[in-house]
């Protein structure tokens, strides 16, 4: 015996397809009422009509509309009105689902991270142009040590001569025209603002990552944690990845070149950013990367299942392992 149900009606059917009882609601539903019922069914619950029947026929097996287990029988059809209301409700439900998708921290983190990547690239290009531009007029100036301050310094002065005086170098032999200086000044202003914007973006990424990935952030820092999460297409996927994949995440080019043409496999991807690896001697980086990747996998799983986050002591233990590896292999391997 089956208890068939749709969003506004239900019926009890025996194995031969005979309808034993039926609850058909031919009411004119409001769009919101229909939406609530569609949502109810989507979440695996029964509409009130089916609940009534299940009390009358406790043995009937509740089965949602359309299942191929059901025997063939004359389905009670919804009225045209009801179909139209259900369609409007479905549209409402879809809109709600789309709106709610903004709650997904993975998506938000991805925008933040990609935005900061794009801005950083732009910033470096524009900063390089600014320094070349100013250097054209002031050939005796040297910017090697304070590249990042040039933008704000230019922004704060009113003329190139003033800037030359600030740097204590010879004034320009050839002066830019007034509009040319304005353009250069605007450029410097933009570069200097980008620096601030980048700080703001990174601050947002840090907060978001510490919230979303507390353990991974504790272990390798929020920025790297965020990068790994985005690169893995989300926290739950990062948790499912084998740690060998985490180790080379971000080194896809080298990895697939290795698979295709047998070049040396990459030892590390994004995790190279971490000083435990980038500040270690070349010959232990692979070993540390492998160990660290496995710890990141554990941390990511703690995050994904919202367990007790790693503490400073846990991280200290990992650091001790890093030190141990560095010590054990303090000499480069012989040839």
């Amino acid at each position, binding site marked *: 015996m089956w208890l068939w149900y749709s969003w506004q009606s239900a019926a009890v059917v025996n194995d031969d397809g005979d309808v034993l009882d039926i609850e058909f609601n031919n009411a004119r539903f409001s769009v919101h009422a229909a939406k609530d019922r569609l949502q109810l*069914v*989507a979440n695996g619950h029964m509409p009130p009509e089916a609940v009534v029947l299940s009390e009358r026929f406790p043995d009937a097996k509740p089965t*949602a*509309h*359309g299942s*191929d287990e059901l025997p063939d029988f004359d389905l009670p059809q919804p009225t045209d009105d009801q179909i139209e209301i259900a*369609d409007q409700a*479905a549209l409402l439900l*879809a809109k709600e689902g789309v709106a709610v998708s903004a709650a997904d921290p993975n998506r938000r983190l991805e925008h933040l991270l990609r935005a900061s990547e794009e801005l950083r690239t732009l910033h470096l290009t524009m900063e390089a142009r600014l320094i070349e531009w100013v250097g054209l007029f002031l050939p005796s100036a040297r910017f090697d040590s304070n590249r990042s301050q040039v933008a704000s310094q230019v922004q704060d002065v009113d003329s190139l001569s003033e800037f030359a005086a600030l740097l204590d170098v010879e004034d320009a032999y050839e002066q830019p025209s007034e509009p040319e200086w304005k353009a250069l000044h605007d450029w410097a202003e933009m570069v200097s603002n980008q620096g601030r914007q980048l700080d703001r973006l990174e601050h947002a990424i840090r907060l978001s990552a510490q919230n979303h990935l507390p353990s991974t952030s504790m272990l390798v820092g929020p920025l790297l944690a965020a990068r790994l999460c985005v690169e893995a297409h989300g926290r739950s996927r990062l948790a499912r990845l084998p740690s060998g994949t985490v180790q080379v995440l971000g080194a896809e080019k080298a990895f697939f070149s290795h698979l295709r043409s047998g070049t040396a496999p990459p030892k590390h991807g994004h995790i190279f950013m971490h000083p435990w690896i980038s500040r270690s001697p070349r010959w232990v980086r692979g070993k540390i990367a492998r160990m660290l990747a496995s710890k990141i996998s554990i941390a990511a799983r703690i995050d994904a299942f919202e367990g007790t986050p790693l503490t400073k002591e846990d991280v200290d233990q990992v650091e001790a392992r890093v030190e141990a590896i560095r010590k054990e292999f303090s000499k480069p391997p012989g040839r």
Partner: protein
Amino acid sequence: MAKNRRMRPLSDSVLMEGRNVWTVNANPGVAVRGESLRKFRGVEHRRWDPNRSKLGAGILRTRNNPSDLLPRPGSTVLYLGAGHGTTVSHLHDHLCGTSNRHRGRLVAVDLAPRCLRDLTHLAETRKGLVPVLGDARKFDAWGVLIPSRVDWLFQDVAQAGQVEIFLSAVRRFLSKDGIGLLSLKAASERHQDGGDADIFAAAIEQLSDEVELIEHINLTGFEDQHALFVIRRR
């Protein structure tokens, strides 16, 4: 220029003009994805770009009557894996028309909220289009929107096990003698030694076991590594 080309109507709203397919724009003046708009006999048509729509490509490639690939205007159809709605919009032109004058229903399911964002915008101006945010495999979640079996079903989901998903959808939603179209992306299936040809051959075998395979349309050139299978439910 247009006079020299062979004009061939596939339905009230679908027109084949040489190697171009056009549908009567149900939302006049608006191009959904920047496709060209052109008037034929005073009626605005939208070009159905075969490079962006596998159904559009199938219509050009089929060896049978292309209008057999389309559903009956005014019927209820199910579209799994609706994407951003390019194909869906042309299908809507054919199935529903302006203000749904044919009284069709196009239930379009997709999993990605980003796609649904575009589909809900489309549904605002195109009556009869019912976007559903849901997993194409989880029939119980949205199956109640299809009160009786449909005569036409399309599936374009890029995930492993496309044929199984298609067959279970056919079992559950397609009426006897109904037409089902499966757009199969070889790259989404697990790798096989024989490459794409083997994946397609395996799909043909699996489909033929259960349904009548009408045609296997190779989409190479429009959409690489893709094929369109046309079946009829026995």
